[in-house]
């Protein structure tokens, strides 16, 4: 596929020509897979929940999206507009009502270790010490003990928690727990990272530290794609190659962030960034702020 960098690959309503064109180049959608398929591909995905009251609630509407290998995509949008539902669909936790989802060219059928998920809520296994938390996925996948040990040590070091291998999660601060959670998912070496507001509730400095950890891990992996939900446009500007705006269940905008890396506070408050910020924020509506 030609849009390896993922630029403009999302398709939604009137702006969907690109994706459609992409699809038509290989004839039909289910033709033999491209040798290097995109990391994530959504084709007209809709998710409708049937509520207990019997009413239907369409949380994701006709979403199409292509995320290239190695691409870091940030998703913003008002809360309750379907961001997490989108992520849960890609993770395989829920099934689409219609449409198709592919990860590395393979259709998604339930959760799997090719997609690592960092949840907003703390998911550390409290009954496992820090090192055992990080090695959970490795054990599950049958990685030999020696290799597990080396991997755990490496990732503990990357997130700066070498001294805490033997600690229980309850003994760690919120920031340290986040680092363990991220290390546990990265150590499992998935191809795609799905993160749902992973840094919510942490202060500015703590976040900046975690951003660095995250970018280090991302750079280390090379080809890994990240799909990260955030409610903070500045965070998206600091981290993303691209920012998607989700509104009322639709992907209404996809903006490239062409700032060089590493990015500084100066850069993400500069003119170019401000233009992106405006185009993103205006999708939230022209609110009367004061």
């Amino acid at each position, binding site marked *: 596929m030609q849009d390896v960098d993922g630029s403009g690959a999302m398709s939604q309503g009137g702006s969907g020509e690109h994706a459609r064109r992409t699809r038509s180049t290989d004839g039909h959608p289910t033709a033999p897979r491209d040798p290097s398929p995109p990391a994530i591909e959504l084709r007209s995905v809709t998710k409708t929940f049937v509520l207990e009251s019997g009413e239907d609630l369409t949380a994701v509407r006709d979403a199409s999206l292509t995320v290239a290998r190695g691409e870091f995509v940030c998703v913003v949008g008002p809360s309750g507009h379907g961001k997490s539902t989108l992520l849960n669909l890609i*993770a*395989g*936790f829920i099934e689409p009502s219609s449409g198709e989802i592919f990860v590395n060219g393979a259709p998604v059928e*339930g*959760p*799997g*270790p090719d*997609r*690592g*998920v960092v*949840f907003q*809520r703390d*998911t550390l*296994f*409290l*009954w*496992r010490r820090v090192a055992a938390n990080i090695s*959970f*996925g490795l054990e*599950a*996948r049958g990685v030999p003990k020696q290799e597990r040990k080396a991997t755990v040590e490496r990732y503990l*070091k*990357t*997130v*700066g*928690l*070498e*001294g*805490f291998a033997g*600690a*229980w*999660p*309850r*003994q*760690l*601060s*919120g*920031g*340290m727990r986040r680092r363990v959670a991220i290390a*546990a*998912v990265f150590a*499992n070496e998935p191809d795609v990272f799905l993160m749902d507001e992973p840094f919510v509730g942490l202060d500015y*400095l*703590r976040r900046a*530290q975690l951003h*660095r*950890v995250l*970018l*280090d891990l991302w750079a280390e992996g090379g080809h890994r794609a990240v799909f990260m939900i955030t409610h903070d446009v500045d965070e998206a500007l600091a981290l993303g190659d691209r920012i998607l705006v989700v509104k009322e269940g639709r992907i209404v905008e996809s903006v490239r962030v062409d700032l060089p890396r*590493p990015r500084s506070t100066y850069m993400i408050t500069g003119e170019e960034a401000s233009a992106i910020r405006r185009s993103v924020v205006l999708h939230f509506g022209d609110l009367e702020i004061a």
Partner: protein
Amino acid sequence: MSSKDNSIDSVPEESSQDSSGDALQDEGSSSGRKARRIHPLAILSFVAIIAAWQAASIFLGETVGYKRVPGFEDVFRSFIEYAGYWQGGLGAESTRTGAEPTNWGATLGLGHNTFVTMLRTIAGYTIGVVTGVGLGFLIAWSKVARGLLTFPAHLARMMPLLAMIPLFALWFGDSQLGVLTFIAFAVGILLFAITINAIGNVPLHYWQYARSLGASPLRTYARVVFPAAFPQLRGGLLLAVAFSWSAALAAEFLGQQVGLGHVLQSALYYASTDVVALTGLVVILFAAVTYLVANKTLAWLTRWAE
């Protein structure tokens, strides 16, 4: 930015910022390991109970041929009567052969009957816990099992346990198996209900997280759902200790030839309220010991919990 730089500046900063004990909290303060001191009021209430008992024995004591409320002296003097519950051997002959009761014979009689009841309690408890918790997990696991077992299990919970003892006696005769089954039944039903509830409370995201790390459903169940539910079983597991003692005594009371429940039954028959009281004290002592052991063990097993 290299990861090394990152690790050097972040840890000390973090541990100094989070004053609320972010870096390692001291291990000793973990739940369940707190040193417990006896409250002064507890001592007061203990003394009050003893005093009330003694008063009751003085004012209501001597009546109608037997002691309605035995005094302390009577209770401790009645120890010798346990010699009557010794079948002979180990240097103390059975009183049934006409031998004089001795303190050694009484010790053996009390020891033997306590030992038997204790063994039954522990064995019944273990079987009950394993089947109750196991069935709970099976039901949460399999839709078929849920369909088949939920209704009978809830029905079983409704049944008055004590009223079922004759039924167990009918089924099992006065065999050992009947006692064990009865205790296991009482404990199992309690834990079955608690287990289902505990599994239902395990947050869905644990399951999703484990599955997305590559764990199979079975592994997720064994390594994630079970430990996540375990702290919620703790209360039930402790309650079941007391429960299994009661069940053991009740079952022995109705149709066993040995065990503290049998001692109670036969002492009541002869209106030996002092032996009944002493046996009650023995039961309280051993039930308390097993409760404390279970409590310590469970505290250790859940030492990771917040």
